[in-house]
């Protein structure tokens, strides 16, 4: 497939504005200024673009809500807090194609009548920070940011706001709290950020990849764009593939491509030709799947039918040498570490699940531990403040649904089913 989002990233100067302009960059921006803001929103709606951060919410609809709110100013925030373990898809855009993101943000801001944007970049990406700062400076210099963008009279200011190590800030309301200088704890919804967001004003939070799709939609038009991938949720999608494959990396592929194709054609198959045991399709907080779902199309509509989610499109492949109890324990250690502490079930529950998994993994599992784990997970599921708790519970339930034998084996035999685990 032709690459749109990662076009040209193999060029050594891909991050520079010169190279970007040379390959047709900022042309969509100029085209957009010839359109009415409402028409751009209509185009994004028609294109069927769904948010690439994980939830898959229709981007055009989000924009519509925000633009209908009479309050000003409005804020546009790029969510570059790519913290979901297994996910590194936005990194190539941030580090190698930053002007695509900036162009996408300026067009989006123009459509939303927003004059102020922030890129909320995770603290763990210092290199991306340097690249973005430079790119933003270049864009100001070239007149694509600032008081009079490309001579259109439209004003848009943009800066990077760097996170500092908090997974929860990937949740949009926690992210807003973090930009406002608070502990990044999720807010109560409603009201939604599109009406009451940063500093109480209408705020659109979009993922890096989502915003990078905007210039594409403007240049191609919704019609041609929606021909890419699955018609129900069209467009190119970045998949980050990791763990036990021959060629881990980020692949730009059409939405809806079967999981099998991603693993075996693009990522080179399971490493060393070993047997595939399990796949997490969308980052650590999406439930694990067994190899019998390999033909499932990777998109927002088909994966839920198979008991998981597309999430961030982070495919984690586990072969038969991997101990899934250990994976589950490590994932839970992550959730415990990242639980913000606001709500009881998540704050206390993640710790307890980790505790039980730890004793199982260490060979001290007890009879009834599986049932206890399930009970806690079900008590958390659907009862926490934000999706982090659901994610944690879903991971445990997913592993126990598909791989309870391996957990049982651990309890009974006090060792791994997978030898090298």
């Amino acid at each position, binding site marked *: 497939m032709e690459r749109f989002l990662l076009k040209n990233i193999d060029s050594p100067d891909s991050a520079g504005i010169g190279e970007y302009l040379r390959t047709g960059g900022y042309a969509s921006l100029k085209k957009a200024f010839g359109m009415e803001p409402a028409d751009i929103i209509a185009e994004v709606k028609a294109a069927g673009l769904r948010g690439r951060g994980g939830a898959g919410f229709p981007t055009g609809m989000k924009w519509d809500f925000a633009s209908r709110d009479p309050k000003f100013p409005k804020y546009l925030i790029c969510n570059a807090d790519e913290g979901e373990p297994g996910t590194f898809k936005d990194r190539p855009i941030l580090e190698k194609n930053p002007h695509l993101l900036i162009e996408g943000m300026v067009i989006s801001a123009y459509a939303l009548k927003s004059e102020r944007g922030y890129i909320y970049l995770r603290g*763990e990406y210092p*290199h991306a920070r340097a690249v973005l700062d430079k790119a933003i400076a270049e864009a100001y210099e070239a007149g694509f940011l600032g008081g009079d963008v490309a001579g259109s009279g439209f004003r848009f200011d943009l*800066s990077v706001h*760097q996170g*500092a190590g908090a997974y929860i800030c990937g949740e949009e309301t926690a992210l807003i709290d973090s930009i406002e200088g608070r*502990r990044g704890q999720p807010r109560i919804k409603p009201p939604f950020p599109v009406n009451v967001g940063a500093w109480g004003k209408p705020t659109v939070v979009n993922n890096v990849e989502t915003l990078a799709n905007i210039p594409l939609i403007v240049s191609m038009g919704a019609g041609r764009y929606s021909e890419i991938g699955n018609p129900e949720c069209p467009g190119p999608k970045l998949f980050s593939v990791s763990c036990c494959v021959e060629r881990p990396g*980020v692949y730009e592929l059409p939405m809806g491509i079967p999981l099998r194709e991603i693993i075996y054609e693009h990522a080179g198959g399971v490493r060393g030709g070993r047997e595939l045991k399990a796949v997490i399709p969308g980052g*650590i907080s999406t439930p694990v799947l067994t190899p019998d779902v390999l033909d499932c199309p990777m998109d927002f509509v088909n994966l839920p039918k198979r008991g998981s989610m597309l999430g961030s499109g982070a495919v984690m492949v586990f072969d038969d040498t991997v101990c899934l109890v250990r994976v589950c324990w*490590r994932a839970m250690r*992550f959730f415990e570490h990242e639980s913000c502490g606001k709500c009881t079930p998540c704050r206390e529950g993640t710790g307890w699940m980790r505790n039980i998994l730890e004793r199982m993994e260490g060979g001290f599992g007890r009879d009834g531990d599986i049932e206890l784990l399930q009970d806690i997970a079900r008590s958390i599921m659907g009862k926490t403040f934000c999706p982090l708790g659901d994610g944690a519970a879903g991971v445990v339930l997913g592993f126990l649904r598909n791989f309870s034998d391996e957990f049982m084996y651990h309890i009974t035999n006090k060792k791994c089913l997978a030898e090298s685990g």
Partner: protein
Amino acid sequence: MDIMDEIRDLSRKYPDRRGALLPALYVVQKEAGWLSQEALDTVSRALNLPQATVKGVATFYAMYKHRPMGRHLIQLCTNVACMIMGAERLVDLISGRYGLEPGGTTDDGRFSLVIMECIGACDRAPAMLVDTDFHADLTADNIFEILEKYE
């Protein structure tokens, strides 16, 4: 530029100066590698926020440090992908060579080691940051080659 001015300058990027709290914490952390009481007090005064507010925010985020760090900060990822690709063995190796446990600092003050939650480099796992330098595809063979460059 004086730190207070630098923080006030940062606050101009936000409609409310409190927005500059996270960036300001980075600014003061850069000075000594960690957030001392005085450093937090500086931020508190520059942004007109109670000290408890500043401390509460600073302790929410894992990358702000609340005790002195070594000259070089090793932030090694051991999350699932890095774990599968051998990160835990690297922790043991580092511990063996420098006597450095996760969360600790070497006696000579050269290194501090912090376990990081997913560094976003799962395709090149295991990976780490040393200060702000990114290193990936770590192995038992290359880890010390890299670390030994940091005095």
